[in-house]
């Protein structure tokens, strides 16, 4: 069975929940899926389907790079760490000094995107710095 068949439900779901700029390509036995989700919930749904088709993400035959289009400068995002505070750093990298913290479930303002991993943000307390995008969920 080809990868496109194996993950047909995944790519079909991507189409039906409004993933834009969707690109699905197979290369060296890996299916690369790229696109932009309209919101965090759509991205979450897609990951649930992926987890169903490939339990525990064991096969290593998909790379699904889905960004959320509402992650835009000026938007607000919730800090979705496990439980701990989110470090706010002087520069985009974990080797950069910590200049502040945002609490779990706090809301911050997105200022600008450095890359897929780092955003310059501002906390409600007015602290500005770089935070890891993985722990920011758009509202």
């Amino acid at each position: 069975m080809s990868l496109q068949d194996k993950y047909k439900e995944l790519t079909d779901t991507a189409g039906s929940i409004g993933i834009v700029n969707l690109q699905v390509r197979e290369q060296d036995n890996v299916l690369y899926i790229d696109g932009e989700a309209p919101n965090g919930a759509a991205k979450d749904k897609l990951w649930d389907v992926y987890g169903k088709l490939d339990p525990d993400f064991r096969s290593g035959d998909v790379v699904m790079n889905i960004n959320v289009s509402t992650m835009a400068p000026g938007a607000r995002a919730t800090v979705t760490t496990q439980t701990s505070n989110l470090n706010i750093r002087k520069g985009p990298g974990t080797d950069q000094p910590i200049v502040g913290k945002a609490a779990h479930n706090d809301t911050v303002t997105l200022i600008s995107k450095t890359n897929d991993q780092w955003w310059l943000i501002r906390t409600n307390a007015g602290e500005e710095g770089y935070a890891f995008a993985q722990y920011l969920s758009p509202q």
Partner: protein
Amino acid sequence: MRKYQWFSGRILPAIVIAMLLLSSCKPKDSDIQASIDAIRKTTPEMTGVVASVSQGVVTLTGECKDDAAKAISEKAVTVIKGVKQVIDNCTLTPPPPPPPASVVIAPDDPLTKEVADATKDYPGVHSDVKDGVVTLTGEIKRADLKTLMMGLHTLKPKKIDNQLTIK
């Protein structure tokens, strides 16, 4: 009175005959069509263009590959003898869709550091990056697996080899 008879008897028939002769000299629509077909054979720009002729008016329809081909087709038809007007209703062929963008794989240099950043909050997880392949070993809580994976998949790896023990 005699003058009138002379006119109706000699001049009028002569005028009528002359008019008939003149009109029969004009190329017929079928001649124009034949000329267009001949031109088409030597004008590659007219491929895909359909021409119809009605009373000396040529209507072009179909598809032209670009504006230049459209202009050439129109000009080639305009110069045919007997063509009074050319109505160019050709549409331009839409450009082919762009080929799918090739898969971008992050080089190991930023990737190794980014994977370290993404895994640092999961103390039981060890990562190794080689030629774009991210290998995960160690252990992780089931509740954390999806979040970790969502982060790693945005780093543009070639592949993620998940060998984690899930608790």
